[in-house]
């Protein structure tokens, strides 16, 4: 699910032992409490050459401990998908060019799974019929490119937040079709805003401890990892979980409630700077 932590010169096994020792003392590597999240910061780039590069939006997602995701949205006209001629097309690409030390096979599988997760979550919150220009003939083809510059755990949440911040209130510009018809500009809107968080669960000394918004070191030692995506009404948009021991139902609902308690803060942090300062 996540890339291994960058331990520098320290051996990975010794680093894991160090993190486990800290967790048994009820401490985290970055000194956060167990139920706190890293508040994301979204930067929007204003480009003057939008029409030349076809770049519609460009955002930079960071949080306090160094996760950095760049999201670039480009749009062109194209044919609609044959299964749904009344909809537009949305593709998501995830690349990680600054991780040369890892196995290329593992990284590629992780990035493919990330792209599928981000795309399926976004199209379940976004009306793709707004991208339709002429039903059955022409539509907007939006390409969301996510570049992982630095990853410190919570990859699914970070990439999803970066893509949602870029696509929310995205303005499709006024353009001309090859047939000469003029397409008016349009604003893209989500009918529900998804926010995500990764929760780790450690079974230390018989008791289970929830770690909200895990980093890469905690994800490598946690027994169970959950990724919860919710909307404004605290409805579940997506839910993924895997671990070394089975979870019972109260643990699953506790994890959802833990993310729901921070949903408003996450949503305001993503949407606060979504309008470019112009």
């Amino acid at each position, binding site marked *: 699910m996540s890339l291994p932590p960058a331990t520098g010169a320290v051996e990975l096994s010794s680093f894991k032992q160090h993190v486990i020792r800290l967790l048994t003392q009820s401490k985290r590597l970055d000194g956060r409490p167990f139920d706190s999240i890293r508040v994301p910061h979204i930067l929007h780039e204003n480009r003057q050459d939008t029409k030349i590069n076809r770049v519609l939006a460009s955002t930079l997602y960071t949080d306090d401990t160094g996760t950095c995701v760049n999201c670039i949205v480009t749009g062109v006209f194209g044919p609609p998908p044959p299964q749904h001629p009344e909809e537009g097309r949305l593709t998501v690409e995830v690349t990680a060019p600054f991780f040369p030390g890892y196995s290329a096979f593992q990284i590629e599988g992780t990035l493919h799974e990330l792209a599928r997760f981000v795309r399926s979550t976004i199209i379940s919150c976004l009306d793709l019929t707004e991208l339709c220009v002429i039903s059955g003939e022409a539509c907007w083809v939006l390409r969301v490119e996510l570049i992982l510059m630095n990853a410190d755990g919570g990859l699914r949440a970070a990439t999803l937040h970066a893509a949602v911040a870029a696509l929310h209130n995205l303005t499709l510009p006024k353009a001309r079709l090859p047939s000469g018809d003029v397409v008016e500009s349009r604003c893209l809107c989500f009918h529900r805003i998804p926010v995500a968080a990764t929760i780790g669960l450690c079974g230390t000394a018989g008791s289970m401890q929830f770690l909200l918004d895990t980093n890469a070191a905690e994800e490598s030692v946690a027994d169970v990892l959950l990724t919860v995506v919710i909307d404004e*009404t605290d409805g579940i948009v997506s839910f993924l979980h895997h671990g070394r021991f089975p979870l019972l139902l109260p643990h*699953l609902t506790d994890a959802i409630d833990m993310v729901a308690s921070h949903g408003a803060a996450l949503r305001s942090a993503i949407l606060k700077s979504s309008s470019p300062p112009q």
Partner: protein
Amino acid sequence: MSRALLRRDGRGHREMRGKELRTSELTQFDGSAWYSQGLTTVVAAVNGPVAARQEDYRKCNVQVYVNRAVRIPRAGGTDRLCVEEQRLEQQRMDAEVEMFLTASIQAVVRLDQFPRCVLEVHVTILADDGALLSVATNALMCALLDAGVPCRTTVAAVTIVAFAPEDGSPVTAPTTTTTKAAPEASSLLSSSLPLALLLDPTRVEEVGDGVRTCATATFVLSNSVDGSNNSSGGVLVSQLQTCPRSSMHGGRMSSKDLVGMVALAERAAVSIFSFFRKCNVPLE
């Protein structure tokens, strides 16, 4: 309303498709399993643990390769871009199956007993007619048992589709005339009535009609510790994804619906465990 609602293949809502299992057919692997539920067929083959070089040497490493027997052919003309996107989407679904199976193996196999080793799994999807993640996980479980890899427990995977019940649709139809009350009425109706569940969906049921199908979930459940047949040991791996185009029509998925899905999956896993046990009868 005494007539029971049936699906298009004649099954009830909580009835699984026919299961078929063959093991030990691929002789070049340590363990193999050919498993199908309905038309969805997956072949899983296990090699290892064998000695290999890797960074984390304290436990066994897991490599899962997912392939498909039939891929979308290439196309030309204006459809080429759409066909390439579908091929890419299929490759990403293979990566999703890969991640899901890797998480299942890490949860089940006692990897710490094999340091400096690699467990290699080759999964080939022969046909995909829905519930692909659960069929692949069940095939993998049988292949691991056939290879003699030590496992903590046996697991069974179940896929469930949640959709809005049909009783709400006649009430929603008259209220569409009043445009202001329609979204509130539909959201109130959807929140009051619990979601109906379909067990072991086909591909058509997974895609749904775009309005009433809310979510598709796959749960991997472990066997109970005391070996009783009326309960399972909990959820090991789970994946829930809401369907596109349904949340605009008030299709909300709450924690209660998740609890109901897990409860139904636990009851369905008992039948899969008994199916595994019956297949373990030695030949005479």
